[in-house]
């Protein structure tokens, strides 16, 4: 605790650059994942295609994608001897964002599916009557369900900001380049500097709380209107 306080107050420049990189990578990843995952999840909720059940099971299962595996896949993709090697993205923040997007998208999609399905259960016939096709109803459902969807976003953010397995493989935890909070914590742990590692962990959680407080405002019950 003390240590973390001292670290924060001393406003150690290096620490801050690490914190900022963590936020940059994870927030970017979550935004991209949301842009992909929310429509996907909503489509799964309203779609009436065959194999829908299977797709839902799959997306739910993908919430269990191991970060290390995702890291490896992205590594093999971006490696110089991999298909996208030419892009020279390995060991860059971009690579870390890609890995986290893969990791977080299923989480946001699966949770969105749940929320949207519950809402659709109420809206479906009304929208259909208004001539809104299943697919056209997606934006409506996402919009009217936004308060509940905030939690899905936060779950995705939690996963992104906390994971280390994927970013360390594709980022390489290179000092000043791809070192983020979690990789630093892992490094300090392996150096046996447990106190420092915990201090950094505390900072990470404090940051998570701040981000949640910010995003959370959107999803607070006070904004709901009780049913007449």
């Amino acid at each position, binding site marked *: 605790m003390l240590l973390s306080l001292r670290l924060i107050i001393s406003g150690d420049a290096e620490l801050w650059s690490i914190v900022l990189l963590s936020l940059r990578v994870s927030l970017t990843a979550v935004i991209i994942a949301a842009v992909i995952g929310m429509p996907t999840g909503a489509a799964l909720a309203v779609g009436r295609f065959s194999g829908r059940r299977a797709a839902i099971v799959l997306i739910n299962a993908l919430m269990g994608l191991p970060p290390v595996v995702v890291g490896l896949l992205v590594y093999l993709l971006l490696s110089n001897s991999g298909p996208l090697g030419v892009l020279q993205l390995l060991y860059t923040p971009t690579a870390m964002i890609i890995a986290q997007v893969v990791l977080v998208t299923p989480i946001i999609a699966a949770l969105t599916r749940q929320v949207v399905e519950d809402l659709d259960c*109420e*809206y479906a*016939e009304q929208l259909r009557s208004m*001539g809104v096709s299943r697919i056209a109803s997606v934006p409506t459902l996402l919009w009217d369900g936004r308060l509940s969807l905030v939690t899905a976003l936060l779950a995705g953010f939690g996963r992104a900001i906390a994971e280390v397995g994927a970013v360390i493989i594709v980022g390489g935890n290179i000092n000043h380049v791809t070192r983020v909070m979690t990789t630093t914590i892992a490094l300090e742990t392996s150096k046996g500097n447990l106190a420092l590692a915990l201090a950094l962990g505390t900072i990470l959680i404090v940051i998570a709380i701040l981000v949640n407080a910010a995003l959370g405002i959107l999803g607070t019950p006070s904004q709901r209107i009780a049913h007449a």
Partner: protein
Amino acid sequence: MRDVATAFDAENVLAGAASHTPRQAQSILPISVRDLAYTVGAKQLVKIDRLTLTPGAPTIILGPNGAGKSLLLRLMHGLIEPTTGEVLFGHEPMNARIRRRQAMVFQRPVVLRRSVRANVDYALAAHGMRGRKRRKRLEELLEMGGLAPMMRQAARSLSGGEQQRLALVRAVAAGPELLFLDEPTSSLDPGATQHIEALVHRFAESGMKIVMVTHDIGQARRLAGEVVFMHRGHVVEQSPAAEFFDKPKSQAACDFVAGRLLA
């Protein structure tokens, strides 16, 4: 909800229709129901061999609770798939084009989690209305439903009657040619009920086909051109209003009108 408004509105509803749904060559009427059955598990909830609803004065559907009235409306409006049989509009089964030409007010209104205004506007947008025209129409509709004063309020927080009025104006927003109404005045006060009845009457006169469920016998008498009487999932009789009310063919209908029929 001033009365002057209504006359004006009634035309406008159709104006709305005319303007954006250029009358197709063939009409979506008559509605022909053929060998229609809706079954859940072992329970046959609706079973109708033949039923034809022709253009003209409103068709009022009467019947005890649980007779299958709402299911029939949902089947005709294509909200649920029949187990067997089909519903034809003109000579076509339901399709996107036909759907845009009809609308329905649910027994239990479903309002979007938005403002009153946004609810009506959504319906207009859904029917592809844009810009100035849409804004103008929006105001007319809010006026027609007496909702202008509370248009910024969350639709969820409206009173029961207000929600029902919202549902109605939302349904007629794009000027449908065919309108299904499921007990649209069940929670309206006497004044509002009269107002809506007057509207329905005008809609009908200006060529909109109304298919309406009600439990208010008086209302049925006032509005009905013909009556369809349902009982236990079947259409027991279909007769011109006058006939139905002075000498119903079936015993069930007699008892029902007298309030003697027990579900």
